[in-house]
């Protein structure tokens, strides 16, 4: 039987085998989880139960409940002074994942190039391919805290470049951008008339400065599709509610696809999302404070044991270098899992430039983080003596200090 060439050619997520290994093991400490370790705040869960009891079990408008779109519009205005018309500039989707797919399909003509900074969230590349486009990966410089620069963008632009994807705070690196940094990027976007797909799902989890939504920058609202949702800010991953804000014509194209493929997002989740916007801010702030403390703790801990790590500005991921071990990312992850029963995600899951790195999630309890750090330290001990050091990694002084103890 002949099946779709384009789908067949999409590389299978190489990480799947490793995932199966992790899922088959018991009693592991996992720092490999890409979702909050908090449960959805009770007031939100309670609202969903209430909506079920009240018999809210129907379809909603294709675009999503008008009330929810109005709430989102108000929220964006209040929080970021952003103006989006709930009637035709906001679309409720099944998670940001769907919104991302819709955005690509709405803008790509066959063969269009989409720029994707690498390492990147796993679905970006394949979804561009499926939409008929060609992903152009831009390796970000670890020395620049894994941030892309306007120069990087201009260098990779060609005649067919249609748009660029920016995910900040970033999964997997945790990197985010200050307003001036984003402004510089926006100039490159204007220069090459690109469409920006801005995935800001981790926006509320920005620790060192205020998150700047891309459309708030001068002249960017008309060329940005801004994606956000409830999964990370309100610990609502399983509810699958995201949204896209953007220019009327693009939102209308996205809605067209959405109404044929998804029809609408589940109504109970939409009702819950309304409650989250109404009363979730306190929980969000509490979770953010907790993540922030864990971030400080884990970054200090990782650097101490020799997994050098820049301080991520947001999300709940650390992306340390594992080069000190002399192992590949995949070997490192597998060996650590086997020997010390600690799970993390090899950097290569997020593109080839993730080699030499690992994603460590601190959406885990502090006691688990402490224990995992101890185990990783124990795991690394033999490598320190036997493996030649990578001179460029600049780890020598650290090591010297440690062996003296």
């Amino acid at each position, binding site marked *: 039987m002949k099946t779709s060439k384009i789908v067949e050619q999409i590389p299978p997520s190489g990480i799947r085998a490793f995932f199966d290994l992790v899922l088959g093991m018991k009693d592991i400490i996992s720092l490999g989880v*890409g979702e909050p370790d908090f449960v959805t705040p009770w007031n939100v869960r309670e609202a969903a139960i209430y909506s079920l009891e009240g018999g809210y079990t129907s379809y909603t408008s294709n675009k999503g409940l008008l009330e929810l779109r109005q709430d989102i519009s108000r929220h964006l205005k209040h929080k970021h002074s952003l103006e989006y018309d709930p009637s035709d500039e906001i679309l409720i989707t099944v998670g940001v994942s769907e919104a991302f797919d819709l955005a690509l399909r709405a803008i790509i003509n066959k063969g269009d190039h989409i720029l994707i900074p690498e390492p990147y969230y796993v679905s970006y590349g394949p979804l561009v391919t499926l939409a008929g486009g060609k992903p152009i990966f831009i390796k970000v410089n670890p020395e620049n805290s894994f941030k892309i620069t306007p120069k990087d963008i201009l260098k990779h632009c060609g005649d067919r470049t249609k748009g660029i994807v920016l995910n900040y705070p970033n999964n997997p690196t945790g990197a985010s951008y200050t307003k001036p940094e984003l402004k510089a990027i926006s100039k490159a976007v204007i220069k090459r008339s690109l469409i920006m797909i801005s995935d800001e799902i981790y926006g509320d989890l920005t620790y060192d400065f205020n998150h700047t939504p891309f459309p708030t920058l001068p002249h960017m609202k008309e060329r940005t599709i801004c994606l956000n949702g409830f999964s990370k800010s309100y610990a609502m991953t399983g509810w699958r509610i995201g949204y896209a804000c953007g220019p009327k014509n693009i939102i209308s194209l996205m809605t067209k696809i959405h109404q044929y493929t998804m029809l609408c997002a589940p109504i109970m989740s939409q009702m819950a999302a309304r409650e989250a916007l109404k009363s979730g801010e306190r929980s969000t702030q509490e979770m953010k*404070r907790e993540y922030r403390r864990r971030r400080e703790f884990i970054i200090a801990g990782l650097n101490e044991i020799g997994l050098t790590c820049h301080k991520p500005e947001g999300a709940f991921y650390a992306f340390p270098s594992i080069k000190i071990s002399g192992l590949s990312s995949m070997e490192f992850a597998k060996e650590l899992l086997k020997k010390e029963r600690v*799970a993390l995600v090899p950097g290569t899951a997020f593109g080839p430039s993730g080699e030499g790195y690992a994603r460590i999630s601190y959406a885990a309890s502090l006691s688990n983080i402490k224990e995992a750090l101890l185990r990783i330290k124990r795991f690394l001990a033999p490598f320190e003596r036997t493996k030649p050091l990578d001179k460029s990694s600049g780890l020598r002084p650290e090591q010297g200090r440690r062996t003296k103890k």
Partner: protein
Amino acid sequence: MNEILEILEKDARTSAEEIAKMLGMKAQAVKAAIKKFEKEGVILKYKTIVNKELVRDEHSDVRALIEVRITPKKNLGFDYLAERIYQFPEVNACYLMSGTYDLLVVVEGKDIHTVSDFVSSKLAPMENVRGTVTHFILKKYKEDGDILRQAKRDKREAISL
């Protein structure tokens, strides 16, 4: 609230070094701040929350909330009587309330008799106590912000992107 206090209130065993890491401070500075809190009485003491739904403590097996109506003493107000009441070791907590009664007294004892004995022989006969209503606690669900049941299981998949 101060972030050091917030962390200690959640887990009193977090070391000064760990708190320092979490807040990006020097361990010495955290230690000094904790000392100061202790000295000022901001930090009263470090206790363990024992789940009394799981272990029996014969001395405090029964707990009752007692509404106490009192006549305030001239010039001394409610504080005078409250002080006389809260010093009894049986009294676990004591609050001055608005509403239909004045003091809410939490009393612990090994059984119902001990608690009612305390109320009838110590509390009720006190001068200026006009009346008491005793409510025995049947089951504890949540105490001081902690839900009293077995540790929650992490329901997430062990790994996800």
